[in-house]
């Protein structure tokens, strides 16, 4: 009897808490999408912003976001994958791996504002790259590097030792083993890592603002400054420029994140089914 009551209380409270989680999610998404989706239209998507975004669309911002994200991912992916391969395949027995790994872990924990400070001090000023896609992209690349390394490493770790042994025992070299067996079998994991990195890059505000600037115009080169959707949203929200554009931008961001998540899930589940 007492057990019954205890169980009731237990299930009741965890149910309620989980329900709260659901409610907060639904209310945030619902509220923003409800107020924002209506304002997303062709004009909003394809026109350049006017008068600080009060009028017009966010076309240049979307393009800026895409280019910046793409650039950072293009920089970070090969480095991240290679680093992950190093940690899982080459690190054994090398004493200096400990510090390297430690620093990577540190990198993952650094708040984005610090990346921003660093990017500003290093790329923008020290290297004289100014506020530019280059500065922002490189800063973001460093920022998403740990995410990529971690995701790739996790998926490399799921490649059973037995694959490596199988390949080596057939007389394959280590590099052949990596390129022909290990990487193909964890490609979906790497892809998931990239998508997560993309998500993080798209969502980042503080670091981007300090390194890529907040120029509203369409960028024409990598040395141009640009404004990402998150920065734009922040500006719109904090300046109180236009509530409807703010909602529309927020909604668009949510929708993009939704698409990215769905893609990531699709890849992961396909991967799981395959293995």
């Amino acid at each position, binding site marked *: 009897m007492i057990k019954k009551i205890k169980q009731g209380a237990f299930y009741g409270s965890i149910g309620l808490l989980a329900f709260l989680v659901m409610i907060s999610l639904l209310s945030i998404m619902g509220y923003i999408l409800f107020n924002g989706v209506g304002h997303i239209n062709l004009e909003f998507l394809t026109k350049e912003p006017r008068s600080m975004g009060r009028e017009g669309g966010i076309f240049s911002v979307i393009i800026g976001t895409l280019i910046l994200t793409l650039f950072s991912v293009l920089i970070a992916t090969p480095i991240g994958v290679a680093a992950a391969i*190093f940690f899982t395949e080459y690190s054994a027995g090398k004493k200096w791996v400990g510090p390297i790994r430690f620093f990577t872990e540190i990198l993952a924990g650094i708040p984005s*504002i610090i990346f921003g400070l660093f990017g500003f*001090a290093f790329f923008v000023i020290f290297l004289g790259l100014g506020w530019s896609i280059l500065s922002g992209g490189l800063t973001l690349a460093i920022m998403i*590097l740990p995410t990529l390394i971690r995701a790739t490493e996790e998926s490399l770790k799921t490649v059973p030792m037995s694959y490596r042994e199988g390949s080596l025992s057939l007389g394959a*070299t280590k590099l052949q083993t990596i390129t022909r067996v290990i990487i193909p079998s964890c490609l979906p994991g790497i892809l998931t890592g990239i998508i997560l990195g993309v998500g993080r890059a798209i969502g980042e505000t503080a670091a981007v603002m300090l390194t890529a600037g907040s120029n509203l115009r369409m960028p024409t080169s990598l040395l141009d400054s640009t404004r990402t959707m998150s920065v734009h949203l922040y500006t719109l929200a904090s300046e109180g420029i236009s509530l409807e554009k703010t909602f529309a931008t927020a909604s668009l961001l949510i929708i993009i994140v939704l698409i990215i998540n769905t893609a990531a899930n699709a890849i992961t589940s396909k991967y799981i089914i395959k293995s």
Partner: protein
Amino acid sequence: MKAYEKIVEKLIIVCAIISTISVVLITVFIFRSGLPILMNYGVIDFIFGTNWSPTNGNYGILPLIAGTLSVTLGALIIGVPMGIASAIILSEILPGKVARVFKSAIELLAGIPSVVYGFFGLIVLVPAIRTFILPIVQLVVPKATTTGFSIFAGAIILAIMILPTIVSISENSIKAVPREFREASLALGANKMETIVRVIIPAAKSGIIASIILGMGRAIGETMAVILITGNMPKIPGGPLDSVATLTGTIAMEMGYADATHQQALFAVGIILFMIIMLLNAIAQISAHGLRGNN
């Protein structure tokens, strides 16, 4: 063939070292910019000074630390039970399909840019606290007053933001509890609740703790959402409805207008933030390794 492999191997090593170089560079640049003032002003005065007014040459960041900690603590108080409960429900109670939907919803939470949360907090939560929560509080403490820009608002938004971290890591560590433990417990005649409370949660303990610490790290490091909703008042708070300024918020906000010394001071704040995060990371790593050691 061999030479080619050697070259590739070297390249891979270089890539691995890049993160180290980054950290070193970050550290160097931040410390280079922040250390002088920290030294001149005095570390103790800097950390324990209660007056943050850089224009006046006062660089006491205790109010900022207090602000950060109070918001973070609030976020944990709200977020941890919700997160763990969700993790339990996800991994132990909900049937597969429903769990998948719930899970992807939570992953979505993780993907939403923090500015969106800040915006939501600013537009919904802050007024709501002022108009709905304050009157309720005033029933108990008649003198209470708030603008809505508060620890409480920040804590709620941060709680939601750290939920995905807590849920996904806790869930993973709960899922990593071997099915055999569940079976063993049930086979001994324990019911599901007893199994969860007495076996599964203790077994996943270190993972859950790690998730909390990582969530805490995220809360401490969060910037934009916090600027929008905590009021940025560099004052040691007296209650959850008070406004506070945080370390990150102050850096982001003041960086733009700061003159040289002020900017150094902000870098110095960055150093302190950096240290706090490092400390948390170390704790998280130790507890994560503890998990591995146990299994």
